[in-house]
């Protein structure tokens, strides 16, 4: 609930920040002489993507396209299109043990380490292809993505910032995404992933996603704006060799909005397959 509330607040902030007739907010007014100066962290500190000055600066250059909308993985030709394989890359030994364990579990009628089913975040890349739409709101400085699946939030920055220093980055399941425009393509670079309870597939295929995971997405708007094409190039030398490539298409959904979705503490008490003897949790 808190997550969706935060998302709604974000969207509300964006709407107000984008309004050209919006008067200066009290927060941007010059402080009174007796008021201590705001802690800006010093000159050059990264400003928020939602700071009015940031948005105004970047609004001068028109973006090649606007992803604002609800997007849903195209499964019209293949209900398994949410997976990023096959083909799968050549796995390292560290990854092969999980692959083999998942295959063995499946053969025995069991489920191997389905962490998403245990309410861990899906994380990137799987969060993009859940069977719920992904709401995207684009402003000049960022794209805010809110998944209909657990309301997972992903922010793609367009404001020219650099990736956070590895010494201080807070690792997450969706990672830190920074994008740049290359002609009619938006190139999104994502690092900073959590390397535990994070998987590249689900349902009989177990390939871990580690802290070295690096994902580059080349995003284009196609089909007269009704489809999103994302070409994924993924590397994680701890878990597979070379580049793992996959191209996905997403359809625009104009007759549904995302809803509040949470993995509540009592959910799996009633979704009993997740607590059944079929589950191999460790």
């Amino acid at each position: 609930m808190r997550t969706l509330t935060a998302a709604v607040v974000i969207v509300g902030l964006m709407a107000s920040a984008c309004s050209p007739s919006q008067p200066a907010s009290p927060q941007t007014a010059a402080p009174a002489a007796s008021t201590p100066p705001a802690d800006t962290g010093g000159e050059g500190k990264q400003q928020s993507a939602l700071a009015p000055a940031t948005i105004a600066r970047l609004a001068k250059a028109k973006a090649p396209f606007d992803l604002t909308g609800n997007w849903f993985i195209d499964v019209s030709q293949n209900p398994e299109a949410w997976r990023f394989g096959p083909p799968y890359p050549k796995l390292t030994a560290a990854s092969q043990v999980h692959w083999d364990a998942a295959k063995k579990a499946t053969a025995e009628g069991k489920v191997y380490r389905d962490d998403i089913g245990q309410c861990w975040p899906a994380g990137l890349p799987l969060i993009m292809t859940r069977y719920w739409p992904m709401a995207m709101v684009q402003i000049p400085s960022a794209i805010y993505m809110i998944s209909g699946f657990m309301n997972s939030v992903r922010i793609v920055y367009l404001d020219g910032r650099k990736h956070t220093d590895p010494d201080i980055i807070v690792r997450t399941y969706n990672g830190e995404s920074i994008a740049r425009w290359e002609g009619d393509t938006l190139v999104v670079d994502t690092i900073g992933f959590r390397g535990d309870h994070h998987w590249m597939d689900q349902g009989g295929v177990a390939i871990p996603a580690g802290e070295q995971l690096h994902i580059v997405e080349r995003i284009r708007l196609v089909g007269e704006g009704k489809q999103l094409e994302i070409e994924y190039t993924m590397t994680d030398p701890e878990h597979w060799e070379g580049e793992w490539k996959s191209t996905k298409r997403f359809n625009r959904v104009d007759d549904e909005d995302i809803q509040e979705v949470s993995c509540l503490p009592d959910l799996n008490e009633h979704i009993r397959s997740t607590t059944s003897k079929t589950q191999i949790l460790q």
Partner: protein
Amino acid sequence: MQKFLLGCACVVVLAPVVSVGAHHSPAAFDRTKEVKLVGTVKEFRWQNPHTWIEVIVPDEKGKDVLWGVELTSPTYLIRAGWKSNIIKPGDKVTVVVNPVRSGEPSGIFRSLTLADGRVLTERPARLGTPDSK
């Protein structure tokens, strides 16, 4: 007389993979089997990410067994004609499920037959395609 038909109702089902809307792996379910549950609704929860039904079903010896039935999200169920008040505790229903492979009284939903004979499934229109309208 209510009947618990586990075993005699098992049939091969040529079903597509039904991972629609699931937050968890569908691998726990045996898609080649169907179990027909004839019983009484104990609870029906209309919620995200999954709707669920608990049904009290007498076994061969007459002992009540509580079955858990997992369904997709209300978004898809609405598209298939469901409403939040379509069943309530105490209703007599027949539910067909694909059971979990462990043999526990749990399964993923296939169809619901109400006391008045109406049959509901959860076959959803796919979002973002022409048939979703």
